[in-house]
């Protein structure tokens, strides 16, 4: 086959091109022809097809995501906002923190191990590209029913992939979630979050400026893996009868990534780069067009200089390849030698593949012949934007009318006891230690808190004790009942989790996992969730700094529950003041903070006991969330509480069980006046936490809650080796532990 050069394309306007196979629509293809004033070459078509994919262009979600910027609360902490590889937040003492969550859902379904592994690799390079040293990862995961064969196929591979890659990089895994629900069968959600730390002056951006500066590709050789990953995989619905898509999944090499991290940090330290971009989705197409688009000039690339793993790759394949562990840097000519020297020290292959030009075109050559000549902005930033039709699904009313508060409840203490054991032993509420024990949480020696704590906490300065806390949460059941409220509840829970450990919430990252944007119902869920999240971020004063949208999460006609996963980053001045979740001191008083209402819609209880999903999710009161957070932070700073645990799915009894088991101590509880014991134990009202208060601090603590207007009810005392609810039932810690800890190993080990 002869080379499809720019000249050849101009001369042969009528050649049939495989735009549909590459995932483009007819009108999109026509627009490319209009931009270029001719048909695209094969290489240009490849670039546009990957960059205009849903995954890279956000073409269906953009109009809704705008709100995160428009409604963003004013925040002094934001140093870099949405649009870069990741947002950057000021945490004081000259430090900046960058964090972001991304999805790798589709690849992980096809090839669980590599899909999950390269999900970690990709998000780590995003953080690295900002100039930061990655310091921790977290994984929010969703799988089908715990006993379903597809879960048995996917989960072990995903967990091994996260461990296999993350453990080899030397990044502690400090938290995340594992949720089971039949709606994720055939469409697991594998989200990955990374946190990085840098000094303010080390922030780097992805742009190519300065005519004559060199474009250096470094890291792994380019291979034939992951070709079209973003367009073929992440932007289409799976069809069970279709051909296997495994070649579109990338293969990871964590050792290469480790070298890339150390090498990149060293070139940053010597101030050798003008701009930098990682190669992830859409590979070189993305890196070259985004760097050129954000910079001041154009770019010329000699594509045949790219080091290859497979010498038979065509230029189109090289441009589309998503081979992992590669970065692209813009370097002044005088600094190239030193740059290459550092790469050599780390055994990292580095090649000058082009340079920044004074034009405004991205030009790519193959053995001297021009195969790409495009305005880079049209590839990277001016892709199609769709205002997709959306409509509230017709079943929504019936779903909300199916009130969970009306479900049959336990009649006496014995039934309560039996349901408590079923709840804490159910797959979603059971201990996930079997999974998280496959991740290294100790490496780097700065992990102050890790799962199952409310949030992970990392020390970033050994002298001052400055640290950050991160939590991720998302409840697809709540969001299915009401996506606006569901998204707000995800933020509220994550925010509360950060505050429960004593850290002040600062900023948000989100991974929005939804069904097909071509389905008006799924699009409505997406629009509502964005609106809810943007509104709540404004009220809580925590701006969205970046994140990721994953659409087309459906196999056939069945979409997943709308699942907005929200990560919140907080700062703590001295990690020694952190609040853990364990009730470890006998005699301390247990206080319940917040209001408990009869709210069982979407609850764990309704799922475990009745296999039911209906009604309305718990109400959101963001002002209350803010007050609760302030109390938890003050109490931590002033030493008024020894433990705190947020209340969310599973309600009070779940939180209490976790705190008691972690501390190895029981608790004796009294149901507060006016509350039904069942509602007290199982309701999932938001804006609540339990804390353990030393008797010497009780007065000071209750005075503070009283003065600030936060309801605080003394519900019992840490004591003994059982959880006893007076007048109702008693259950030993041993029995609770057996129920809580045996479930997951029995299903998966």
């Amino acid at each position, binding site marked *: 086959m002869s080379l499809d050069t720019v000249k050849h394309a101009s001369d042969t306007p009528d050649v049939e091109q495989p735009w549909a196979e590459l995932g483009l629509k007819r009108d999109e293809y026509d627009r490319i022809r209009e931009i270029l004033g001719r048909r695209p070459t094969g290489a240009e078509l490849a670039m546009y097809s990957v960059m205009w994919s849903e995954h890279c262009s956000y073409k269906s979600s953009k109009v809704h995501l705008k709100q995160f910027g428009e409604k963003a609360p004013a925040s002094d902490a934001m140093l870099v906002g949405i649009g870069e590889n990741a947002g950057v937040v000021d945490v004081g003492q000259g430090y900046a923190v960058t964090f972001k969550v991304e999805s790798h859902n589709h690849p992980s379904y096809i090839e669980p191990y590599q899909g999950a592994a390269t999900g970690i690799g990709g998000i780590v390079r995003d953080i690295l590209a900002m100039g930061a040293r990655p310091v921790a990862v977290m994984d929010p995961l969703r799988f089908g029913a715990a006993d379903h064969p597809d879960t048995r196929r996917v989960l072990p591979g995903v967990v091994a992939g996260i461990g296999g890659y993350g453990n080899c990089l030397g990044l502690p895994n400090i938290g995340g979630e594992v949720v089971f629900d039949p709606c994720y069968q055939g469409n697991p959600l594998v989200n990955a979050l990374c946190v990085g730390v840098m000094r303010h002056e080390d922030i780097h951006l992805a742009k190519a400026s300065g005519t004559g500066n060199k474009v250096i590709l470094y890291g792994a050789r380019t291979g034939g893996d992951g070709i079209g990953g973003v367009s073929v995989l992440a932007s289409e619905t799976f069809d069970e009868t279709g051909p296997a898509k495994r070649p579109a999944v990338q293969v990871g090499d*964590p050792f290469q990534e*480790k070298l890339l991290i150390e090498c990149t940090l060293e070139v940053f330290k010597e101030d050798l780069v003008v701009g930098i971009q990682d190669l992830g989705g859409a590979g070189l197409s993305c890196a070259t067009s985004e760097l050129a688009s954000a910079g001041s000039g154009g770019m010329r690339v000699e594509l045949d200089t790219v080091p290859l793993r497979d010498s038979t790759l065509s230029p189109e394949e090289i441009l589309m390849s998503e081979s992992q562990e590669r970065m692209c840097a813009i370097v002044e000519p005088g600094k190239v030698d030193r740059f290459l020297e550092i790469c050599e020290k780390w055994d990292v292959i580095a090649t000058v593949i082009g340079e920044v030009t004074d034009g405004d075109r991205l030009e790519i050559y193959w053995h001297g012949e021009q195969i790409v000549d495009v305005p880079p902005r049209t590839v990277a930033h001016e892709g199609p934007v769709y205002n997709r039709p959306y409509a509230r699904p017709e079943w929504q009313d019936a779903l909300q009318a199916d009130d969970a508060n009306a479900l049959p409840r336990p009649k006496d203490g014995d039934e309560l006891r039996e349901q408590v054991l079923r709840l804490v032993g159910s797959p979603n509420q059971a201990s996930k230690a079997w999974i998280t*024990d*496959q991740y290294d949480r*100790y490496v780097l*020696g*700065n992990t102050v808190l890790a799962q199952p704590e409310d949030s992970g906490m990392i020390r970033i300065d050994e002298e001052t004790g400055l640290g950050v806390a991160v939590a991720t949460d998302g409840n697809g059941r709540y969001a299915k009942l009401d996506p606006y409220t569901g998204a707000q509840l995800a933020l509220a829970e994550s925010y509360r989790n950060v505050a429960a450990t004593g850290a002040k919430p600062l900023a948000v990252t989100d991974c929005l996992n939804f069904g097909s944007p071509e389905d008006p119902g799924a699009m409505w869920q997406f629009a509502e969730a964005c609106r809810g999240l943007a509104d709540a971020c404004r009220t809580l004063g925590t701006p969205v700094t970046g994140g990721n949208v994953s659409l087309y999460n459906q196999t056939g006609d069945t979409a997943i529950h709308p699942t907005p996963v929200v990560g919140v980053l907080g700062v703590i001045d001295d990690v*020694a003041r952190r609040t853990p979740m364990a009730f470890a001191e006998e005699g301390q008083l247990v206080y319940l903070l917040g209001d408990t209402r009869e709210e069982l819609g979407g609850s764990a209880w309704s799922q475990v006991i009745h296999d039911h999903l209906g009604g309305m999710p718990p109400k959101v009161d963001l002002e209350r969330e803010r007050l609760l957070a302030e109390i938890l932070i003050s109490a931590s700073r002033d030493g008024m509480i020894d433990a705190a645990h947020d209340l969310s799915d599973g309600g009070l009894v779940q939180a209490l069980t976790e705190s008691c088991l972690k501390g190895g101590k029981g608790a004796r509880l009294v149901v507060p006046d006016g509350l039904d014991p069942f509602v007290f134990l199982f309701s999932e009202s938001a804006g609540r936490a339990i804390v353990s208060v030393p008797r010497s601090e009780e007065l000071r603590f209750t005075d503070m809650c009283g003065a600030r207007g936060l309801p605080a009810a003394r519900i019992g005392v840490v004591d003994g080796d059982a959880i006893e609810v007076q007048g109702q039932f008693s259950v030993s810690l041993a029995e609770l532990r057996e129920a809580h800890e045996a479930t997951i190993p029995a299903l998966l080990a």
Partner: protein
Amino acid sequence: MTTRIGVVTFPGSLDDVDARRAIRLAGAEPVALWHRDKNLNQVDAVVLPGGFSYGDYLRCGAIARFSPVMETIVDQARAGLPVLGICNGFQVLCESHLLPGALTRNDHLHFVCRDQRLRVENADTAWTSDYAEGQEITVPLKNGEGGYVADERTLDELEATGRVVFRYLDVNPNGSRRDIAGICNEAGNVVGLMPHPEHAVETLTGPTTDGLGFFTSVLKKLVAS
């Protein structure tokens, strides 16, 4: 004069920073050593840290054994230089034949990270003299290939000569023969173990501070000599 303890960084070392911190907290001066450099910079002892030396896609430690820095370390260890191999470092010591036996894939086939109780079986080595024989300590364990194996004769000999330095308590986390968590050479200057004492040196970040004793042991020995 301060005592200088070297920590080798292979390209895939992960716990090297932590090992240096532990050395500092114990009161010695940590010295970073680079895998390509034969020169040990006159350090008084060496720690081979955890990680994946050169990626370990072959056998863990199989390539590290041939690195320039290991040539010098093997020579000097035979001459009495105190050397501690932690996790991947233990694997490198076995591959280098400074210690007998080998580490194999965990019997349950999963990576495992847990707080592990150990019994100190030999408190006379360069790295364990600050402990009492029979003392029980808890330090993190995290590995995918930590099952200690050797032939029966070697195992018998290790036991008979007191060269089993640590044994797992409660749970054998990886299928190690005879619950062996760590061993030493005949002279007691070279110790290797799978668990990570450098992750148990601060109450803030570790389950205990039981790991500090490794570093204070060698420090006292070096100061005394």
